[in-house]
């Protein structure tokens, strides 16, 4: 997976950017507020057709005084070159693949694969469950592009179901339809997530031992805090990843047991939109008991393991977007990060920084200076 060229027009403060990046390391150096993160955001947008900044509206993506932003990249994967383009106007985004408009995003997803690592990831374990769900969902999306559509459909069903729960009328047939749909989509999501955790867990354990301490036992588990998961459910969640009927039964029971609560509160209280990840070090919760050093090492291990998981299981190297992480990591962890990056046989990386010295890379490097929306090689 290689970004061979990137052209941006009126994307945020980047009014005109034309870059032919290095196939290994690209360093974007500059002070804060000059447009470094916007550069990474543009690459992300060409992959996911949305920003990595939560709740971003289209208007904010467009340069001041302009009607639309145009993002275009030439990407290479498996020997094939393709041109992807996203036009952003206030009314919406239009996607083109080799100049042809893309009607269905599901046909487009998977064209560009990126993994991001930014300051907000340092807080992935300290923040709310949605942060951890996003981590899992992004990793799955990279491996299975169709997951994005599945997750979007699930969200839609969920909104309808919640609207029904809030409404006054009761149509048993209508409820039955949305229960059926909810279980169908939720089961697919749960199975994808359980399958991810199953394969991700050993990679994480190995990574943490390598970068921190070989004597530590790490554990990461998928967590459903709904009533039906403990009683009546025999066998581990892990087994459910290959047991469609079992997952559907679990969801069915979950809905039955929470019926009273969801009518009262007016929304669906069980399902993949409520789940979480639990993480432990030597049996103790990372969030509460780990030292700051252990905590950061754990987060770094999660990100490195995410990349390794994609490379080992799916045999492709995603583009890495590292947003000013060195300033958030201590010296030791920073060294581990760059050891890992240099040790990969291939794979393109974009790194932003305020200080070039933080970036422990000497070979195969292009450096760009980012200043007031201008990106110039230096």
């Amino acid at each position, binding site marked *: 997976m290689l970004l061979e060229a990137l052209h941006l027009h009126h994307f945020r403060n980047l009014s005109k950017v034309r870059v032919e990046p290095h196939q290994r390391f690209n360093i974007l150096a500059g002070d804060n507020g000059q447009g470094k993160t916007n550069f990474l955001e543009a690459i992300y947008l060409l992959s996911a057709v949305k920003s990595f900044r939560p709740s971003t509206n289209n208007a904010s993506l467009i340069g001041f005084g302009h009607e639309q932003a145009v993002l275009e990249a030439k990407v290479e994967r498996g020997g094939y070159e393709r041109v992807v383009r996203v036009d952003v106007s206030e009314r919406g985004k239009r996607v083109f693949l080799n100049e042809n408009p893309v*009607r*269905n995003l*599901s046909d487009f997803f998977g064209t560009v694969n990126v993994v991001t690592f930014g300051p907000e990831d340092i807080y992935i374990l300290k923040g709310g469950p949605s942060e951890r769900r996003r981590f899992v969902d992004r990793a799955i999306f990279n491996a299975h592009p169709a997951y994005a*559509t599945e997750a979007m459909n699930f969200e839609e*069903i969920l909104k*309808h179901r919640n609207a029904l729960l809030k409404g006054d009328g009761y*149509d048993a047939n*209508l409820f039955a339809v*949305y229960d059926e*749909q909810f279980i169908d989509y939720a089961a697919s999501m749960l199975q994808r997530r359980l399958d991810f955790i199953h394969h991700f867990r050993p990679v994480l354990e190995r990574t943490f031992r390598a970068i921190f301490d070989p004597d530590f036992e790490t554990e990461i588990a998928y967590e459903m805090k709904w009533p039906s998961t403990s009683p009546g459910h025999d066998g581990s969640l892990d087994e459910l990843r290959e047991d469609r009927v079992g997952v559907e039964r679990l969801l069915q029971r979950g809905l039955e047991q929470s019926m009273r609560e969801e009518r009262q509160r007016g929304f669906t209280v069980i399902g993949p939109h409520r789940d979480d990840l639990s993480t432990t070090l030597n049996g103790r919760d990372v969030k509460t008991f780990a030292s700051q050093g252990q905590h950061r090492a754990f987060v770094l291990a999660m990100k490195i393991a995410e990349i390794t998981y994609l490379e080992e299981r799916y045999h492709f190297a995603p583009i890495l977007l590292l947003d000013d992480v060195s300033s958030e990591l201590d010296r030791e962890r920073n060294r581990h990060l760059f050891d890992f990056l240099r040790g990969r046989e291939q794979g393109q990386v974009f790194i932003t920084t305020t200080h070039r010295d933080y970036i422990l890379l000497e070979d195969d490097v292009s450096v760009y200076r980012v200043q007031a929306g201008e990106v110039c090689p230096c």
Partner: protein
Amino acid sequence: MKTRDPITNLINALSKFPGIGERTATRLAFFVLKEPVEFANELASALIEVKEKVGLCQRCCNLTEGDLCAICRDTRRDPTTICVVESTPDLRAIEGTGDFRGTYHVLHGVISPLEGVGPDDLHVRELLDRMRPGPDQQATPVTEVIVATSPSVDGEATALYLLRLLRPLGVRVSRIASGVPIGGELEYTDRVTLSRAIAQRRDM
């Protein structure tokens, strides 16, 4: 709101059409201005006529000038098979294939609790009435209902809902094959794909 300027009024009215922005509306308005007055008269009366004369077919809810639409009046059509569609453009798209010889039922929408659209807002009751032949309904009983709502989340939910109502009545319920792209609308699907989707329908 009406302004005092007739050109602005026309532009505002035209920009209410789906897909017509202010720029196109302005172009259309100036076109009307440039044309002879007969054109404006013709257009105005066509607009009023369509609203005054066109109503819903009493049987299938298709648009029609009379009590029954041309398809329901046509005795060569097979009344035992009903194809349920979301909208009249969808009906037209399926008619365009020339392969379907049954009759239709137009829902005029899909179920969407989020937007407050429930079964009562669609013409579901009229569809159920067609299943129990009464004095003013067709004499031959319906044997198959083909649900051709779009494969979107809402179209799918609508199909499942109809299935729940129709199955207890002993009628065969089928769904068009999903050769139609997900999220794509029937209206824009090419004839061959659409024709195949109907031919390869499956029992729900």
